[in-house]
């Protein structure tokens, strides 16, 4: 009986997590990445720039959150020349909790660690 309850609980969590993840991904695409696609600014490239500067998930999360709340050329991860071609983005209207979730989703989507494999 205990095993049945455990398996059921595990299944619920996985299904639920998958739903949230999909939903979050869709929302990330809608709220954030859509503009990047339209403006032809590769999101992977931006992620790699953040990764190269901030190294850890938490530091990147903090930096992205801070920039999105108050976009500023001085604190941007992109080089100054970038703003000659692209306008400064406007601050997002998403609430903090939602924004944090989107950032987490963004970082997880482009997480480079998942791509690393050992040589054969």
């Amino acid at each position: 009986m205990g095993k049945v309850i455990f398996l059921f609980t595990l299944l619920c969590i996985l299904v639920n997590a998958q739903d949230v993840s999909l939903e979050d991904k869709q929302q990330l695409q809608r709220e954030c990445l859509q503009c990047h696609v339209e403006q032809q600014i590769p999101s992977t490239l931006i992620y790699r720039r953040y990764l190269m500067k901030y190294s850890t998930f938490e530091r990147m999360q903090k930096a992205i959150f801070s920039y999105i709340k108050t976009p500023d050329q001085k604190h941007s991860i992109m080089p100054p020349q970038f703003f000659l071609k692209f306008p400064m983005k406007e601050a997002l209207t998403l609430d903090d909790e939602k924004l944090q979730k989107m950032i987490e989703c963004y970082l997880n989507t482009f997480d480079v660690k998942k791509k690393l494999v050992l040589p054969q």
Partner: protein
Amino acid sequence: MLNSEQSSLVRFLLIYLGSTFLLFSLASWIFYASAKHDLLDQQRETLEYQSENIKSKLRLLHKSFDDTLIYPGGNSFDSAIFDLDKAYIFGTFENKPTLEQSDHYYDEKRLYHVVKIEPHYLGAAYLMVSKEIDKSPIATLQEKIIWFMLGAGLFFAALGYFLGRLFTAPMRDSIEQMNHFIQDTTHELNTPISTILTNIEMIETYGKHEKSEELQRIEIASKTLSRIYEDLTYLNLNHDYHRQIESVDITKMIEERIVYFSAMAQSRGLTIKLELIPKKILEMDPNDGVRLIDNLLSNAIKYNKTKGTLTVKLTEESLRIIDTGIGIAQKDLKGISKRFKRANKSEGGFGIGLDIVNQVVNSYGFVLHITSQLQKGTEVEIRWEK
């Protein structure tokens, strides 16, 4: 080689070789630590080269947008990357290593090299490269040091022995000269002493006169001389002396020696008390027995008070000779049986009596025990069995 020379030489060699060994050990240890450090440095250079290689490959990977990124590894080493918070990202180690130190370090098995990565390609802030330590050059180094220590040890042992012999030569010459002198003197004394004693005996046996006091004094003096002669001969010949072990009736021997010393005891007005068990047999050389008893009795008489008491107790287990003499101070008791050691110089003698007693006791596995109180007397006990 003489005993004193041997013990001096042994002590010198112990101090000399001990200090040399310590000095060489310290020097070898410093050399070993330095040489090992150099060897590890050489191995670390390989790691430094590998780390630069990995860094450049990480840079390329960071710019790659392939679905899979093949981590740059190698067969001869392991590596791992860590983020700014020193959390493990990825690596080729079997077990995830922890990044606690920076730069380079090593443990029993592996050598580690840690470098910072700036900018943080793939989020990596630190790169750890590690390989198993190649211990063969270290083992060769240890082997060389051991051979060096052995060679140096043998050389300095030989040198120490040569120096020791050189330093003790004057002492050896002095002792040999003294021994030759004693040997020659005893040889020259033998004939006159024998002549005197034989003639006194003849006067006593065939003489028409009563034994006068003067004659008795001559007898005592001659016997003292004779006993000193016997002791010196015993000490001189002791090394080459071939003992003839036989069953000796020690009771009878004590009685005979008491008679021998009676004149000397009478001259000091001593009362002799004998408590002897009959026919106590010991397996020993009779000459050793005589020297043992003579020296104990002679000391007990010589250092006794005038009109004192000399008690001789012989049991199955031991012989005890008790006097009521001047006694020996506690501080002198420890070394009293060494040759030429005399606790009291008021009486004549060379201080060889107890040395002879000690030699006999050691030869037969007896146990010598001396107890004494100043101005009260001394008790010498010899236990036959250990």
